[in-house]
């Protein structure tokens, strides 16, 4: 019972701030509503019994990704086109289409027999790290994926630096750097 009350409160916060993202005019307000939505989703993860995932959600999503997004919005002055209309004529067709799609999926979902299993393991830090870094030959082998993920993040960082910098190492880019 108590879990249901917590879930409803967190779900209302998450959906409400997601609607705020949809309706806010300034991107910075949208980003802050998105942070609220992500933090309440982290609460739901903790409620469902995956506290480690909730903490990672707060650290990576609400911390790192949203910090990056907010930083870029403020650097690029993301509100400069905020007087153009938020939605155009295409939205009149897109929004009902998405709603109908969600309705169909929801209809199929409520008819499927899924229920919580009483024997699920709580995804605590110890269990999750033990599974993730199980280097035994018969283990699940997630540590290989973990290494690949490190390479992926490194290459993403390199790609971001290469894309965002004007001209690598030229005199011109060093001169104009002060203006930006």
């Amino acid at each position, binding site marked *: *019972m108590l*879990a*249901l009350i917590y*879930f409803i409160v967190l*779900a209302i916060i*998450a*959906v409400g701030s*997601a*609607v705020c*993202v*949809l309706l806010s005019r300034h*991107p910075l307000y949208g*980003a802050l509503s*998105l942070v609220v*939505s*992500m933090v309440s*989703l982290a609460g739901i993860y903790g409620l469902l019994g*995956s506290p480690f*995932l909730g903490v*990672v959600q707060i650290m990576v999503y609400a911390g790192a*990704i949203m910090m*990056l*997004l907010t930083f870029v919005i403020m650097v*690029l002055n*993301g509100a*400069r*086109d905020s007087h*153009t209309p*938020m*939605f155009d004529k*295409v*939205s009149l067709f*897109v*929004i009902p289409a*998405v709603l109908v799609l*969600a309705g169909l*999926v*929801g209809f199929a*979902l*409520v008819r499927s027999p*899924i229920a*919580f*299993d009483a*024997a*699920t*393991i709580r*995804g605590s830090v110890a269990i*999750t790290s033990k*599974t*993730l870094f199980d280097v035994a030959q018969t283990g699940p082998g*997630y540590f290989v*994926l973990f290494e690949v*993920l490190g390479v*992926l*993040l490194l290459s*993403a*960082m390199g790609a*971001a630096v290469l*894309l*965002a910098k004007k001209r690598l190492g030229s005199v011109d880019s060093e001169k104009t750097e002060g203006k930006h």
Partner: protein
Amino acid sequence: MELQAMYVQILALVIFAIGLIVAVSRRNVFFVLMGVELALNAVNLSFVGFAKTLPAEASIVGQVVPLFSIAVAAAEACVGLAMVILIFRNRESVDADTYSNMKG
């Protein structure tokens, strides 16, 4: 009344739909990125919700896979924002409709 596994999936569906609407119908490019992030969040929630319906050993998988999905989302946001900065230099606008011309 207890917390049902279905409620989690319904919540994930609602948030995914809102994220899809934000990503497709908003014109500001930052809102497009935020909509994608919202949809990714909903997918992670769905992963965890389904993981809790599995018995003991199998339920760990559904709680490890979202970690990878979160890390891939971080890489996606990093490259996506760098591309936004790059296009913004050429177009001087954050309206996604002005990005329709692909000539560099």
